[in-house]
């Protein structure tokens, strides 16, 4: 039996070789259901071999985007290229033969075994060498020993792994994972993360929608934040830099008698504010350059320094900042 580390067991290889263009190219794409807009004027591209995170609150249009790019829904306007093929109704079967979609719910045939589920899909993809592919996909998710178990007897986490094996079966150029860890316990979540990490190492292009921000930060090369319209796209550190000014957080044993006399005029310090008793937040242009100067000034003022550090904004901070902005905008 393969080890628990999924990364060590993903051995399948891509059949179609590296693609020259972007794996996904989306331009001004919109989808409306009657008067309701699911998403509007969304543009982005995903490079070949990239893990692209798609974040957003409930109802932001993430799943609709996956279904649209997966050719289940027709876009209302805009254009897209999926796995190098223009997104049109006629190209649906051709696109679907080069992608895999793992919906939020595993959608397994519960009265069939894991292997039988995969066999059905191997036939639908008209895969040659079906048995070997099935074994390889099950191996990739560490489920070879449960291949002949009925899916209804499997736990939620194991079902999710079967669904992931099903998505890997056709060696897709682009793999869409819609909330792959939704409802899983921490152990199952970690296992799915390891599997996604292994796919990333293998160079599979992954489009991942998730609510879990730490998941996106850990797994994704770039993330997009969608709230009906596209709010931001970039690497997590780029997004942080875009949204938050760089700063230094200073913690002292006691409050300064005259903080203005210490901080005002210090090179690189743009502004300061007291954040709590003995704590100050300094807005700086370059934290690495400013920190020694701040330390020297504080020592000179006789302060007992507990710490000087650049606060690290998580992707969650970025996300909440944007979503809060949207909520505020709606209120106005």
């Amino acid at each position, binding site marked *: 039996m393969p080890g628990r580390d999924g990364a060590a067991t993903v051995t399948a290889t891509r059949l179609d070789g590296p693609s020259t263009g972007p794996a996904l190219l989306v331009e001004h794409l919109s989808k409306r259901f009657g008067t309701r807009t699911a998403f509007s004027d969304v543009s982005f591209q995903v490079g070949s071999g990239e893990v692209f995170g798609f974040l957003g609150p409930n109802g932001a249009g993430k799943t609709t985007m996956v279904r649209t790019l997966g050719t289940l829904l*027709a876009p209302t306007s805009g254009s897209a290229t999926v796995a190098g093929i223009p997104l049109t109704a006629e190209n649906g*079967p051709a696109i679907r033969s080069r992608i895999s979609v793992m*919906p939020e719910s595993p959608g397994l045939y519960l009265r069939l075994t894991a292997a039988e589920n995969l066999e059905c899909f191997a036939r*639908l993809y*008209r895969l040659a060498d079906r048995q070997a592919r099935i074994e390889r996909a099950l191996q990739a998710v560490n489920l070879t020993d449960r291949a002949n178990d009925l899916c209804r007897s499997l736990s939620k986490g194991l079902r999710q792994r079967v669904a992931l094996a099903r998505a890997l079966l056709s060696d897709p150029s682009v793999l869409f994972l819609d909330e792959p860890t939704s409802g899983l316990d921490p152990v199952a979540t970690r296992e799915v993360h390891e599997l996604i990490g292994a796919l990333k190492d293998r160079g599979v292009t992954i489009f991942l929608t998730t609510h879990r921000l730490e998941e996106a930060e850990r797994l994704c090369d770039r993330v997009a934040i969608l709230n009906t319209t596209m709010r931001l796209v970039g690497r997590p550190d780029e997004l942080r830099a875009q949204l938050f000014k760089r700063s230094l957080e200073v913690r002292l044993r006691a409050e300064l008698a005259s903080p203005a006399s210490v901080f005002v005029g210090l090179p690189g310090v743009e502004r300061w504010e007291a954040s709590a008793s003995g704590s100050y937040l300094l807005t700086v242009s370059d934290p690495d350059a400013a920190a020694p100067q701040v330390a020297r000034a504080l020592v000179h003022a006789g302060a007992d320094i507990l710490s000087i550090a650049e606060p690290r904004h998580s992707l969650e901070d970025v996300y909440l900042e944007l979503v809060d902005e949207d909520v505020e905008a709606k209120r106005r």
Partner: protein
Amino acid sequence: MSFSWARVAGIVQKELRDYRRNRFVILTMAVLPLVFIIVPVVELLLIKVSVSSSKFDTRIGLALLYMLVIPAIVPSVLAAYSVVGEREQGTLEPVLTTPIRREEFLVGKALAVLVPALGIAYVVFGIFLGIVALFADPAVASAVFKGSRLLVQLLFTPLLAGWSIWVGIAISARSVDVRAAQQLGMFASLPPLVVVALMSFNVISPSVPLALGLGAVLLALDGLGWRAVAAMFDRERLVTGGRD
């Protein structure tokens, strides 16, 4: 990409495996035929040859009509489940994201219902004929084994099943509830039986040309039914539940 029988086979194989382990399907396939064989067998064994000729024909016709209810009702129940059932279980979306075409999906679903339904209908009819040959009055047996009556049974069994399947799948593709789909499917599968009933009761004088003519009409309806179902099979509607 052209029509692929390999993909159709994938759907058929999956469906048959699923049926085998589905108690509801097993019960539908076992209990309904059992009900519909007991009544006509008892009916024919109790016929007295002394009754008037028209009453005799009516009772024979009624008994044989029961045999045609099997290919009308059994597939309609299964077909009505085929799409809405998958949607309820959440298994439809993963299938629709594969390269399968709607025509392949529908033919696969239809064949998976047709094969067991025909098998059951013909086996039950064979058992029925065997019982009649062995235990019924020779006059009754002779009436049952009349060429035109056998032709009606053999010809109309697949045609009625075909009609029931397409009607069932059409209802299933537009429904949001399995039970409602099955009830509607059962009712919608019955109208062609009326014509067959008229023939069985000698209201329309049964003859080989008439049976062939009606068979051709039913065959044409089956063909139209397939096209109509393919046209109303809308991935977007199925995935979003008709949200528009």
